């Protein structure tokens, strides 16, 4: 029975939950976004440094959330570093499609390291946990006018 749950809570998830990467305030971020999941009260502050060419140079986060949302944020900060914003956006689209179960022909390879989180698709109530950090990143990349700059 608890084997099933290991699909959701893989060792990598536990590892990132216990020791989240890039869990820090970024003083010189040029985009800061507050992500909030009103359903469960989880909060995340995402810091992004993006250069003029649209390449994400650094991402970090702070906040409190469940293991899924913390691991997702932690993994994301590792994965999107040095990606062009359009690449990050495309990856999120793929992840979102798979996580929300809209894609029957699941191709986990497309997801790379993110594949460890694909297990959420069996837990509709937890999809928002896995996507909170990504929605925050999307906001940081898209709504340039409304994001806070710390310059």
């Amino acid at each position, binding site marked *: 029975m*608890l084997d099933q749950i290991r699909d959701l*809570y893989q060792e990598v998830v536990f590892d990132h939950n216990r020791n989240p990467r890039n869990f820090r305030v970024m003083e010189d971020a040029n985009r800061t976004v507050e992500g909030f999941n009103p359903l469960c009260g989880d909060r995340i502050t995402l810091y992004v440094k993006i250069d003029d060419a649209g390449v994400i140079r650094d991402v970090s986060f702070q906040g409190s959330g469940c293991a899924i949302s913390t691991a997702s944020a932690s993994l994301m900060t590792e994965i999107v570093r040095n990606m062009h914003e359009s690449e990050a956006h495309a990856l999120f689209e793929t992840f979102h499609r798979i996580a929300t179960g809209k894609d029957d022909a699941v191709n986990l390879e497309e997801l790379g390291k993110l594949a460890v989180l694909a297990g959420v698709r069996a837990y509709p*109530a937890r999809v928002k946990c896995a996507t909170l950090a990504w929605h925050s990143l999307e906001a940081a990349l898209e709504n340039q006018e409304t994001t806070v700059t710390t310059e």
Partner: protein
Amino acid sequence: MNTAPAAVPAFDVARIRKDFPILGQQVHGKPLVYLDNAATAQKPKAVLDCIAKVYTEDYANVHRGVHTLSQRATELFEGAREKVQRHLNARHSHEIVFTRGTTEAINLVAQSYGRPRFKAGDEILITAMEHHSNIVPWQMLCEQTGAVLKVVPIDRTGTLELDRFEALLSNRTRLLAVAHMSNALGTINPVETLIEQAHRRGVPVLVDGAQAIPHMAVDVQALDCDFYAFSGHKLYGPAGIGILYGKEELLNKMPPYQGGGDMIRRVTFEKTEYNTLPYKFEAGTPSIVDAIALGAAIDYVNGIGMETIAGHEQRLLAYATEQALRIPGLELFGQAAEKGAILSFTLHRIHPHDIGTILDHLGIAIRAGHHCAMPVMDFFGIPATARASFGLYNTFEEVDALIAGIHKVIEVFG
């Protein structure tokens, strides 16, 4: 033959569970352990059968037809109102207004009682443990009238600070709105004392009884509350039906909340005469069958007895609390002396959502989140809790399953 008078029947929870068909199922291959009763309670067969019977045999619109079915439906509907009246010990059945639930009942009082009366600088007093539905309607009213919301604080055990309550009760206070029992902490408030003190200053009191109503006998005349609100779905009845009790003299002075059919006596395009109580507040076709089935739910709990139910749940709570406090890293939120059957807790370094998902895999249904009481979470500096809440059909074995489940969660998270 045994001719001795029947002894008071012992509380036979195994027999009671048979009344609830939904409880017999398995979830993830485990027997369902339903511990989310504070969110909503499951329905006994008596309620399910009542719904089917009325739709099959007696259904028509109420108060409108001369035909037989309409009269039958009206009798059942008004009969349900009388059951609610007796259950709350209200003086009159026309003091019982059918609403969609607690939320609508509170909004009705805010808009119909508060809005025409309250002025800038008037104060509305609530407490720090209210559900959002006993906060937001008052905030909306404050925006509309310029009234000010004042909040009675709680202490770390989740008990209301009574001396602060006295200090906050002022000449400007126009209404006290308070939960009889907190859904996030389980605290049972000393509403009788609060009402007495408020009345000494001429302040009317609304009691949010959403959580209290399934756990205890409520006597609105003994409490002397001015309004009492509750939802059918937490009392083992249908969702979509609720009750506002209001004192006749107050309800009479209040304008209708919504306009439409049933709430009028005579309509011309120049002028409309409103109907009498309670119809003045029941515009449109009500949730007829749900109201009737709420009556069946009330009959059901009274068949067991509210004292008996309260006793059983208090024993469950005491047992669960004792077991839970032995778990390393478990913190309990809400340890008031007077408490209903709710166990709100966190585990060290394990988020309530993760607790909820893993327990679900063990067949155990609890709630994880802020329980629509974000100010309570803020007060304790936590984003959420895991909450197990008990009902009349829960067993000691289910408490054991919960405790074993929590140990499993800790094991999985290492």
